[in-house]
């Protein structure tokens, strides 16, 4: 599973990455993380706002902080 966090390095983006990592560890999933910080790469996704969570190239959430339950829901196969 490829997980991308889109964000320019703001506090919220780091928090989202931390939450997602925790959820991944909890579920015991094998996942690769990437924190995308370049503006033009972020803008290639259909998002307007950061932080955004992209799982296997599908945007799951953008512009707000999802709760841990939501993240777990997206990660479950």
């Amino acid at each position, binding site marked *: 599973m490829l997980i991308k966090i889109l964000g*320019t*390095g*703001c*506090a*919220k983006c780091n*928090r989202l990455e931390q939450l997602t990592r925790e959820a991944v560890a909890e579920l015991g999933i094998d996942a690769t993380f990437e924190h995308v910080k370049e*503006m033009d790469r*972020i*803008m290639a996704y*259909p*998002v*307007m*706002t*950061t932080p955004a969570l992209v799982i296997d190239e599908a945007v799951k959430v*953008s*512009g*707000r*902080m999802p*709760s841990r339950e939501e993240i777990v829901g997206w990660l479950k196969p």
Partner: protein
Amino acid sequence: MELLVTALQSGLASLAAYLAAHVLLCLVPAFFIAGALSALVPQQSILRFLGPDAPKYVSYPAAAGAGSLLAVCSCTVQPLFAGIYGKGAGLGPAITFLFFAPAANILALSYTGVALGADFAIARILLALVFGIGIGLLMALLFRGDEKARSPMPEAFSDGGIPRRNLAFVGTLVALLIAGTLKVDWLQAELARVTLAWDGAAAAQALLDRLVPVDELRGAEGLSLQGLALIVLLGLIGAVAWRGLGKVDEGFNRLTAVSLGLTFATLAFAALGVRAGSEGLGITVTVRTLAVAVLCGLLLPQARRFEAWDMQQWLWETWRFVKMIFPLLVVGVFLVGVVRTFIQPEWIQAIAGSNTVLANLAGVVFGVFMYFPTLVEVPIAKMFLSLGMHPGPLIAYLMADPELSLQSILITSAIIGKLKAWTYVGLVALFATAAGLAYGAWVDGMAFATLALMVGGGLAVLLLALRLIERRRPC
């Protein structure tokens, strides 16, 4: 040596007056509102009006709305700007958004209103709105043929609304801010008065007056006994909130409740009238006290209707804003107090004492070359005002300072290109000067209708001229 002591004393005095007078009833609710806007208002709810197919009369006001509601912190400004420009409504609304965001977000506005007066806050938001939309339209017109870099993506602007309870919650917070700061008579009407017998009250106040002298000419406000108590309470809140709010995203802890309770109690205390007299402390309960207490009380049942996660996010975001902005503001206010002792009022009055084109330009140039962190422009403006700067040039400075910093110029030129970015800078300088002149003329007594006619006429002529130039150019 004596100069140094005076300077340090002036710095501390300005800090003390700032903490006691401005922070509580204005900035504390404003921080909570900023947190709520960031955590509880889904950005999609405003962004859906900024899609590539949105008509102009929708997208420009929506861009301004996005600027004041969503962009409280610079880390949202950059992606939003790039997104509106690249995928959505285009260059014009993106520029409007960029221009409006720093001048009209809730923190800047409420702080301006309390430190400089409501008329400055209203002038700031109105002028930023008019000129922000004007500059956006101009830029869109100037670079009309240049839309290649854009790749409209309507799917990024899907629907979404704001749940009603979120609106009600933010509304209550805004009401709290207004009730705590608005200077109208009926809010100050007296409901009850008690006198606490304390022989030392007058002496204690006299001591404070000696330590923090009141100096109307230099804009030093002094410090009251109530102010001193508030500073102590503020320190306490800070100490408790460090864990209580800073760790709230891991779950509510006992300190969360303590810090919120303390904050509300402090807000209510700040809204009391306290006067030290010869027979003791006279304490008056006004309509304001009651309003602040009732509104704080109203927040609790509303908060219970949210999911815990939403409230945790709200408090976490609030604390994040405090941690990000407050230290810079404290340092800034202190330094402003120090610097104030070195500036002669005559200098300011000679350069910007009256509402001339040159004075307004001076305000703009100072704003462009001095880069102050968010909100520090307000105490600086207050210092200039007390030193005798005319309100016109002051508004010109307030418009130019947050809009044009080296940092914002670099970001914009990376996203929209150097030519567009520097055109934008030139336009902002031009329009900020015009805004200062307009406000200055109004303060000097020019009729509103005449002024509106002149500003509107000037904009219309500019747009017409551009249209004509564009037409002439062979395609």
